[in-house]
């Protein structure tokens, strides 16, 4: 209000004298950029990805790691478990492809992903991993069901190798970008997504009725791993550059997800409440993926984060 009055005085003076002698008006939020960067506008472009991408990270992680469990279960003669794990892998691969297509701006041009192979583009490598994984997993499932073992073995091995990469490459996908909150944690991200994928696959198989010791062991390992990764993330702070991971909605999504799939899942497993542990782990892993994508959006829209990351 004071600003407006001062402005009127200046207008009056200009009208009478034809010149204004005093200082101008410092209107709060006025023209001179006072926020960091250019009027506080984003320096980077926030990701355009919607809900399909975090759900794809979740589903792809389960599918990929389920293929690893399927191969190992076959090796150790858990035939029923192997079949169910392979079913998860195949269904997950199909669902992942649909999610990725839905996320595209032009879904009908999905096949353009397979026009070229660019090893420097994580998106390109990922598209090829998913394509070959899908092919191996679906045909591997069919071969397993039909008991064509000669064909099933190489397909199982192939889908396990591609699957484990499918579960971890998504971390590199976020890590190799221009967004500080992501690239500053490019080493943590693949470990985190891989661990979450393995734990989620084991948890889902347990919920489907395969309550065996190896899966419980994997669940324990993943929950312990997630607890450690949570501590790592809380300690490895980069100030304003990655505050989106620690503050606000995105920060709480990540923290909430980590607590659910880390310490809480671990506690329930140690208490022997395996179904609870499995459900908590799955929910935590899903929330956490949403948190990471959300943090990328918050961080990219924050010019201070970009400037802080590039300060010498």
């Amino acid at each position, binding site marked *: 209000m004071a600003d407006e009055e001062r402005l009127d005085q200046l207008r009056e003076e200009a009208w009478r004298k034809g010149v204004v002698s005093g200082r101008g008006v410092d209107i709060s939020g006025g023209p001179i950029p006072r926020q960091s960067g250019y009027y506080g506008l984003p320096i980077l472009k926030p990701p355009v990805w919607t809900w399909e991408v975090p759900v794809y990270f979740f589903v792809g992680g389960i599918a990929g790691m389920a293929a690893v469990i399927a191969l190992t279960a076959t090796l150790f003669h858990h035939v029923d478990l192997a079949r169910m794990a392979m079913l998860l892998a195949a269904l997950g691969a199909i669902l992942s492809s649909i999610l990725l297509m839905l996320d595209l701006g032009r879904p009908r041009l999905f096949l353009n992903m397979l026009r070229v192979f660019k090893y420097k583009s994580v998106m390109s490598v990922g598209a090829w991993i998913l394509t070959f994984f899908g092919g191996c997993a679906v045909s591997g499932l069919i071969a397993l069901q039909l008991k064509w073992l000669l064909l099933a073995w190489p397909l199982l091995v192939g889908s396990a190798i591609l699957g*484990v990469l499918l579960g971890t490459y998504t971390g590199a996908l976020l890590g190799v970008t221009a967004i500080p909150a992501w690239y500053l944690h490019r080493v943590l991200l693949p470990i985190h997504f891989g661990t979450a994928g393995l734990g989620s696959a084991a948890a889902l198989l347990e919920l489907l009725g395969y309550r065996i010791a190896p899966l419980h062991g994997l669940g324990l390992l993943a929950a312990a791993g997630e607890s450690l990764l949570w501590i790592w993330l809380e300690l490895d702070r980069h100030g304003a550059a990655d505050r989106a991971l620690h503050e606000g909605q995105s920060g709480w999504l990540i923290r909430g997800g980590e607590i659910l799939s880390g310490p809480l899942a671990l506690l329930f497993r140690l208490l022997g409440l395996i179904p609870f542990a499995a459900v908590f782990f799955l929910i935590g892993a899903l929330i956490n993926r949403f948190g990471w994508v959300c943090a990328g959006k918050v961080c990219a829209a924050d010019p201070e984060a970009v400037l802080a990351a*590039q300060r010498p």
Partner: protein
Amino acid sequence: MIGQGAESTNQRRHSYVDDYVEVGFFTDPTVCIGCKACEVACKEWNEVPDDGFTWSGNSYDNTGRLGASTWRHVLFLEQDRQKGNQVVGSIDGDLSAVASAKADDPFRWVFLSDVCKHCEEAGCLEACPTGSIIRTEVGSVFVQDDVCNGCGYCVVSCPFGVIDRRSEPLPNAGGAFKCTFCYDRQKSGLTPACAKVCPTESIVFGRLDDLRARADERVRQLRENGYNDAQLYDPKETSVRGIHAFFLILGEPGAYGLPPKPDVPTIYLKSAWASAIATAIGAFIATLCAFYFL
């Protein structure tokens, strides 16, 4: 040096595309008058749709940022600093007060026409999984719209926040768009539309080597004339290794929304993939151990 008029490279026909000559833009805010003719010419020539009419309240800039439907953007910076040897503050009809008024109430208005930087190492080009984004004969970075499937990975890979995906209900929605460096005009020997219309030659189009020499000369000239904070914004020492559309700026890059030390994201490939592959091996071993020992 500035204001070459009809002799300017902006007005001459050329054969850079046929001759494979690297070209660029040199944008000089000290001669920009903020007329936004470049924005208009770009929109008109490239048939870029309007992306909304909003009043920002940020000086005379209602364009805001570069984006999928804004390929040239004139920034309006109002700073409480002196511009060169300009006289600032009140004079009150007494010219002897000029000297003392100098530091009294400094104010400068800077206009800068921002554009895609056409990086030497382009994050968007490296990230594109379809091969839609290519390097042209003249060294510019070009998005082939008929190939782009709108995955959005270039959007997060551009260290300058230039390229973006166009959203509904705009025409050609779903694809990624940015400055084309008027590749179509250049193939016909014409100057990019923005440089062609620039009335003060604030935007200069020409051979990259010529422009770099010209830019260095201009910085020297300005510094001699009291523009102590004049500098070239061309991040050659970072992994971007220089940009083909470079700027002369007064003050810090951050104030223009330009990243001070941009890096092309491919430098993170090694550590991210090392982590991913180590995790993959770890997951295999953990699963084998779980089934073997338990």
